């Protein structure tokens, strides 16, 4: 495990790169002095500074996973148009910045030609989907992430390149119940359906006390088998959360045959209006169906259509649903409301309708 580098490695503790060196010159000059912004067209907006300067931003959708050559081509564009600077957004888009309005169209053309990336994902559009590792790199996934996202972004390409929703639509995917993906307007997550199966020969790999103590419902207890220490899972208590699996691979929670996808709606981080909110179960039991997961795009489309038709301007997905009521949400999407939609976990009671408020 010893590196073969020239010197013995030692902590350098360099810390964070000095962002000041990397700022677009106009950003540097007008740092903290921005007055307002305006939307120019989908994917393009301008910020105006107190100094009178304008800074145009062109946002291009990226697949996040990129090869060095592809990234170098993005650098070429930035060198040509953006004084050698570019930035990424928290949703994996690339932002190219311009000082001159007339560069916008040439830049967009260049992005399309050189990178093949669409320009959009701003304002009231379907934003780029954030996602996690999936089968490409993680050791826990029950599904892929990049593939689901590619399939969805193909399906909602028009929605990405236009701003036709009442408000921004943010989507995320995750590939196991740990959910590294974001709490967003719409989320596509994996659902397990069985307690973990224990590979008793493998439990030596892990620290038993750790795996026992990680279970939130105390479903794992020590056991002995063939004279060796192992664990057992109390099936009735286990709620298939997969925390133990993340701790110890010998507790296998996944099942290629039965794992499904579920869709969640109404998550929000922004403190705008009513504030942040959790996303809630919309529908479940969608097949884990690579390479194109068509059922997922269908379900998402149902939500988007109802949202587009019914929401008031500026209402996020969750706000729209709260206003029309979940009864109408289910009616308008055609999803079925089941007993599984009713919370049964720790704060379940606080989700009950404790009033005589009913829509009849």
């Amino acid at each position, binding site marked *: 495990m010893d590196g073969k580098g020239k010197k013995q490695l030692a902590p350098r503790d360099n810390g964070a790169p000095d962002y000041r060196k990397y700022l677009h010159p106009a950003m540097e000059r007008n740092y903290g002095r921005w007055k307002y912004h305006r939307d120019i067209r989908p994917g393009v907006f301008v910020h105006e500074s107190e100094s009178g300067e304008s800074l145009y931003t062109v946002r291009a959708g990226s697949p996040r996973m990129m090869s060095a050559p592809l990234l170098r081509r993005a650098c070429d564009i930035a060198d040509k148009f953006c004084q050698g600077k570019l930035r990424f957004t928290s949703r994996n888009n690339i932002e190219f910045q311009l000082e001159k309005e007339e560069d916008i169209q040439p830049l967009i053309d260049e992005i399309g030609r050189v990178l093949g990336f669409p320009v959009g994902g701003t304002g009231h559009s379907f934003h780029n989907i954030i996602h996690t590792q999936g089968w490409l790199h993680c050791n826990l996934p029950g599904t892929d992430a990049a593939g689901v996202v590619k399939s969805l972004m193909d399906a909602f390409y028009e929605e990405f390149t236009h701003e036709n929703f009442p408000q921004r639509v943010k989507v995320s995917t995750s590939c196991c119940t740990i959910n590294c993906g974001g709490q967003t307007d719409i989320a596509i997550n994996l659902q397990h359906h069985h307690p973990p199966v224990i590979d008793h020969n493998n439990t030596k790999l892990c620290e038993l006390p750790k795996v026992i103590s990680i279970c939130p419902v105390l479903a794992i207890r020590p056991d002995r088998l063939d004279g060796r220490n192992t664990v057992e899972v109390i099936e009735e208590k286990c709620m298939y959360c997969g925390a133990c699996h993340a701790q110890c691979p010998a507790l296998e929670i996944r099942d290629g045959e039965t794992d499904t996808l579920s869709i969640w709606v109404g998550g929000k981080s922004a403190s705008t209006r009513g504030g942040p909110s959790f996303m809630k179960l919309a529908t479940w039991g969608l097949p884990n169906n690579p390479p194109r997961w068509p059922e997922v795009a269908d379900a998402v489309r149902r939500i988007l259509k109802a949202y587009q038709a019914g929401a008031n301007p500026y209402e996020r997905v969750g706000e729209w649903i709260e206003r029309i009521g979940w009864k109408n949400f289910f009616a308008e999407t055609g999803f079925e409301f089941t007993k599984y939609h*009713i919370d*049964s976990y720790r704060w379940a009671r606080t989700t009950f309708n*404790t009033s005589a408020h009913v829509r009849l």
Partner: protein
Amino acid sequence: MPDDDLKLPLLDQLEEGPWPSFVKDLKEQAKRRPQVGQLLKQLEQSYEDHWDYWRGTAINVPGYGGGVIARYSDLGERFPQVAQFHTIRVIEPPGFVYSTDALRQLCDLSEDYGAGIMQLHGMTGDILMLGYDNEKLMEVSEALMEKGWDLGGSGNGMRTIPCCIGPARCEMACYDTLKLTKYLTDKYIGYLHRPEFPYKYKFKLSGCGNDCANSVSRSDMPVIGTWRDDIQIDQEAVAQFVKENGPDWAVRNVTSRCPTHCIHLSGDRIEIDNRNCVRCMHCINVMHLALAPGRDRGVTMLIGGKRTVRSGEMLASVLVPFQKLESDRDYEEFSAIVERIWDFWGEHGNEHERVGEFIDRIGLGAFLDGAGIVPDPQMVTNPRSNPYIKFEEYAAPRLEGEPHKTANVLEHEPDREEDFEGK
């Protein structure tokens, strides 16, 4: 022996002030019924010591498992007349309506056998008749029953049912609260008199969402009047209202307070998107000369309310969004729901576990399954936000070939420690 000259330095201070004084009244009564004097003396002692001097145990009238709250004084030697000082709970007339004959009858019985003091009414709705010793208790019970009265609830059974005045004197009433109170009391009188549930079960009936019977916060099964067609609007009266109060006032205090923003004032007309109306009553309350509940009426049934002990406060939540309550058939459907719940909770509830606590333990989804009630999005303010779901649809034998068992109350029963864990 009547005690005409009670000196009670602390309690005497409660004779002062404009509000009617129970001390003054009881002192008067002490002249007729000596035990009331001793009651006051013991109370004075409590005021002095910051301490209570009553002990309770169970006393039952034969054939009844409840209805009596037995009290023995710790100071029985000093105050022998209140050494035994029990309360009888008597079922009130629905709506708390009385003829003076009926009330006088109670007064007489109360004085003939006991201290001649009553509380009208107890928090649950009973007529509380105070101050009987072991012997008089049996006698007064017999006398009450002879005259058609009946003992109220206590212990682990159905409790005496209170209701709002409803159709008898309220324009908001969406069903006949008094009739349902009598129907349920009479039909289930055995569950009231011979308690055999895991714990108490309270109904409270309100004719509309104003909930004048406090059902949501204080009963296991609130029954609240509602409607499923459109709010009735008298646009002329609306115009009159707008004229008197001004459109700004109307917007500020009526339409903008609608929880779903489904009511609008346009000019001097009210427009309502009834699909989004949640029957909160606000607009009707304020503009009650112009608006009224719809005509296709029924009830919303809720479940699981109670006050503090053990669980902290619990408000009841929607169980059946709409149930008609007009024909005999409607009443039977209603009762069938009640009975399914009692069967399921009765069989699987732990001792001393209110139905709301039972739901917390097993989960509302499992409860609906067990009681045979169809899940409805209106039961929740929102679906779950966590993915910890055990779908039966995917369950298959897995662990060492054993048959798969899904989340089930039976599994939870013996395992007390789980009560406060997640499921």
